[in-house]
């Protein structure tokens, strides 16, 4: 039963109430809708801040991973499903990023203006509740409910706001992602039966997985995988699409190109990172042996994402697509940190998730501001904007440098940890990741210089104004955060100390205490 005040349910309730309030206000009072949206986003933000501040004092419960502010209410006892929420070091930061990014989305929407405010803000705040649900739930069925339920408001949001290509992009995104999620649903049900009929995370983590017989194809006798490996693959692929890792990424560029900046801040900021969250929380701890068996494959995918994303970003002409592919490359980095299965790698991954959230949000806002001013998204039709907009130049420069991982800014802090973690797994990973960093330097500078430097392009419109005060004050806090996190990344480090150790112990890679020597990457499949 719940002990003490159920804070986490409040974190879910506030956005839902906000959304309901917005949906009830008539369409005419646009200002009322906007204030409701702002209040909901701010309230959630402060609530999350409060939770983070006294996170260390809160009591922790739960076996492999200890959760704070835990809540547990019987919901469907017959099939062992219960309404369980919990917060650990990992999800605390994801929740923080979630609150920040949605607040940013609302602010950008207010600054840039949006045509159907009631529909937009209602759906935006509803999505916040759904993503918060995904982060907070510790019952696999509840997790799945929020995980796929998130697509509902997202679907209406993506298909009604954006440019002309949005319909096709949305169908592609929703269609293909949901197809894989259903396989994950099967895996969840399979785990549920294995764990003796309960969906709770602790019960499933404690299920005994020995004695798995390899499924062979009847008649042909081909040795396929053990059922647990199939379940792991279902989980891994569902998360890989969300991250996205390269072969499953084709929905991302089209979608990011069609979304407005206010949509992109929260979509690129948190929604696409829940894949990483899934890998750490569920794939790594519930399938420790399988994670090891497939570690080689997953690392290869991560590296492929880094390099492939970088190459595509080099060649793209549309500035939003460049940023989209750079986001794929960065997420490749983060997944490299996760799949290296080392303590430092995981620390780096969590840190980089927050950094990337800030950087990508800032980048997309800047891209939209440039698009509004120059009227086009084609890189070859724009250059020499620095003379007209010094403020834009300065803020875009800091964001670009942070994005390419320049030491001193937040991009580097995460990447350094990730590459060190990957180095411990095997030195080849760090070298290839290094190539990724060089390529990142190249395409990010090409983007920044392509737009800012060189003489003014004859095609660009006259009378381009610099950033207005409001727009400036959206980007300045982000750049300040980039510099601050670059110099003081330990803020993130302290909070998730305990949890990272627990995740490592749960995934049987390292005993929680010491770090083993960088053993060469062994591929022997455990019996």
């Amino acid at each position, binding site marked *: 039963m719940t002990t003490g005040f159920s804070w986490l349910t409040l974190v879910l309730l506030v956005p839902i109430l906000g959304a309901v309030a917005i949906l009830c206000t008539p369409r005419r009072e646009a200002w009322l809708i906007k204030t409701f949206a702002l209040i909901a986003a701010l309230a959630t933000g402060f609530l999350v801040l409060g939770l983070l501040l006294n996170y260390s004092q809160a009591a922790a419960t739960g076996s492999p991973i200890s959760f704070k502010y835990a809540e547990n209410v019987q919901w469907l006892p017959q099939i062992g499903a219960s309404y369980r929420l919990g917060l650990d070091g990992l999800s605390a930061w994801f929740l923080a990023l979630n609150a920040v990014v949605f607040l940013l989305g609302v602010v950008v929407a207010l600054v840039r203006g949006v045509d159907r405010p009631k529909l937009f803000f209602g759906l935006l705040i509803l999505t916040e509740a759904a993503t918060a649900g995904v982060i907070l739930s510790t019952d696999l069925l509840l997790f799945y409910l929020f995980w796929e339920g998130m697509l509902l408001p997202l679907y209406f949001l993506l298909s009604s706001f954006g440019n002309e290509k949005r319909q096709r992009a949305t169908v*592609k995104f929703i269609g*293909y992602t949901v197809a894989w999620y259903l396989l994950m649903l099967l895996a969840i049900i399979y785990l549920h039966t294995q764990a003796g009929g309960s969906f709770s995370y602790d019960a499933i983590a404690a299920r005994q997985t020995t004695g798995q017989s390899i499924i062979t194809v009847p008649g042909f006798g081909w040795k396929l995988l053990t059922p647990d490996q199939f379940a792991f693959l279902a989980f891994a692929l569902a998360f890989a699409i969300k991250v996205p890792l*390269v*072969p499953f990424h*084709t*929905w991302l560029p089209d979608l990011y190109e069609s979304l407005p900046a206010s949509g992109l801040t929260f979509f690129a900021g948190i929604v696409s990172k829940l894949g990483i969250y899934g890998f750490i929380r569920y794939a790594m701890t519930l399938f420790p042996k399988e994670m090891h068996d497939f570690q080689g494959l997953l690392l290869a995918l991560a590296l492929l994402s880094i390099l*492939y994303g970088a*190459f*595509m970003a*080099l*060649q*793209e002409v549309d500035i939003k697509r460049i940023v989209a592919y750079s986001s794929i490359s960065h997420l490749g980095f983060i997944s490299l940190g996760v799949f290296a299965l080392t*303590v*430092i790698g995981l*620390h780096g991954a969590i840190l980089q998730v927050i950094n990337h959230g800030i950087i990508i949000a800032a980048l997309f806002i800047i891209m939209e501001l440039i698009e509004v001013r120059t009227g086009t998204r084609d890189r070859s039709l724009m250059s*020499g904007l*620095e003379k007209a907009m010094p403020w834009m130049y*300065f803020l875009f420069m800091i964001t670009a*440098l942070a994005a*390419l991982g*320049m*030491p*001193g800014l937040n991009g*580097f*802090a995460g990447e*350094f*940890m990730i*590459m*060190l973690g990957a*180095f*411990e797994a095997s*030195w080849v990973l*760090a*070298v290839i990741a*290094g190539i990724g*960093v*060089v*390529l990142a*330097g*190249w395409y990010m*500078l*090409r983007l920044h*210089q392509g737009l*800012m*430097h*060189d*003489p003014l392009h004859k095609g660009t419109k006259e009378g381009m104004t610099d950033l207005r005060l409001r727009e400036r004050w959206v980007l300045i806090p982000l750049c300040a955060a980039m510099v601050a996190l670059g*110099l*003081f*990344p*330990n803020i993130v*480090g*302290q909070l998730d*100390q305990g949890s990272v*150790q627990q995740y490592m112990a749960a995934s049987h890679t390292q005993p929680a*205490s*010491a*770090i083993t*020597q*960088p053993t060469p990457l062994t591929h022997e499949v455990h019996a």
Partner: protein
Amino acid sequence: MSQGFVTTVVLLVLGFPLIGSLINAAFGSAKRRGLVNIVGTVSIGAAFVVSAVALIVMLTAASSHRAVTVTLWNWYVVGGSLSVAFQATLDQLSIIMLLVVTGVGFLIHVYSVGYMEHDEGVARFFAYMNFFVFSMLFLVLAADLVFLIIGWALVAVSSYFLIGFWYERPSAVAAARKAFITQVIGDVALVIAAFLIVTNVMSPIGTHIYSLSMPTIFHNVASFQYGSSTVTWICLLLAIGAFAKSAQFPLHTWLPDAMEGPTPVSALIHAATMVTAGVYLIARFHPLFDRAPIIQGLVACVGIGTSFMAGIIALSQVDIKRVIAYSTMSQIGLMIYAVGMGAYAAGMYHLVTHAFFKALLFLGAGNVIHAMHDEQDIRVMGGLGKRLKITEKSFLIGSLALSGIPLFAGWFSKENLLGYGVLNGPGHVALLLYIIGVCINVLTGLYAFRLWAIVFKGEPQTARPAAAHEAPRIMLVPVVILAALSAIAGFFLWWPVAFGSVRVQDFTQFLSPVFTSITSGPLAHEPGVASGWIGMLVGTAMSLIGVGGALRLWLRREPDAETVASRIPRFITQLSMHKFYFDELYDAAIVRPLRAVAKWCRKLIEPEIMDGWVEGVGIGVDDLGNTLQPFQSGLIRDYIAYMVFFALLFVIIIVGVVVR
């Protein structure tokens, strides 16, 4: 020196330039030029004063505890393992670098007040220059690998800003990007070296200490066996980082293009400070380098090779700044050769003297360009000596110091350096390197005085030089001071070994605790007085030959330069003209293939394969739907026929199974 004092020194030295840069960036503008100039120069001046005070305090302190390491704040702490903190070290090596950077930097800032008089981007310029000095000091003071890497990258970024200062010129923009990407390659090499170090540092009792701070690493340097593969890899990666920063052989192509930036930038960055960071890095990591003999040999060879190549290229350049740029590359090559041999003090000594006379040459060139209204092609100039008297005299002193004419600063440091070359250096090839080193003296003399003669002497090729006027006083004062330094600096610091015991040696004595204390590897052994004399005479003779040849060819023009050039085999002149075709080589070998792969990805892989399987599944399912559709023919009798057929089928299956 006490911890508190060092912390204040570090914070002040870093704080002044940073605050100066921020003030100029935020509030500076062309209108408030006066304020901008003052803030820009005063901040560097203050940093210089603080460094001087620190030097005095250090000199008074006992030589044993002059090196003090201070922790500023915790960067990242990982549970039971890695803990990274921002640490700064103030020891003899870093105080010298501090003085060079802030001293020469201050003079250059004063000079650029005059140089940037008509440029409306002056606020941005001073902001970037101050930021550069801040990042250089940040790098020099770093005592922690992460601190160092951050300083390393900040320097690269500020040089990117400054090279691309005139962002309206596409060539400047391309040069800036090229410089930055080469630096990123060096940076990544450094990061991977840091990983290798971190994962291999063992405490004497064999437990894993996950520390990134250099004092602890050097304290436990015993865990790296002499000549082991790990140490070799680490030093190779550090060397790559150094080569990228100091524009040495594999990664040198960015330096000539970096001349696109304003001249004070070239003076500060591409002469005095940034390019020397590579030498400083190897000097700082000398305990590791001493344990990797192969890499030391490699470094020495690369140093000499680059130096020789740069010398040849400098001979055929027509742009005044590029000639000096290649001369910088050549002199840095010598320093790398010295450091490669293990003669770290000699390398640092040449670094200091080189900072003076190279900055002088660049500022002189700046005066020339200023006078010729931004004209950099020396073929257009000639006979400027008559109109720019002071610049011509100080440029002469600079050239003399550069080519190593006795009693000038260059001679002291070069002879000292080559002196070590006689006995040290990599194995059997040591003597060969020494000989090339001495030949480089000839080349240096040749291109130094070729430049001087063409620009200042002889009759003007075109009408433009006639209109030239001497630079304003504010630009001349720094030039004169630097000329004085280039002339007399050698006397006070370190005399070549030939002068035996009576010679002045306080530069090496000052530096010796840094390079001897804990290293167990073989240090360069001191040359004897006799071999010192031979080395000095040979070196000086070569320099004189070079200078004489240059004067005959370009001053008195007996055998005209072009006829001499025609007699040299064509391929050498072509090589020299086209900078050994490295630009084209890299472009063909790296840039174009990478871009081709990227285009291939975009044109072929993305639409075909990546999108392919996604669309393919969709089309496949649609086709399946098509095949099933015609069964719906609308005729009742067909429907009933299917129904009967399937009913019978099921009956047969079910009953058949039971009967059998």
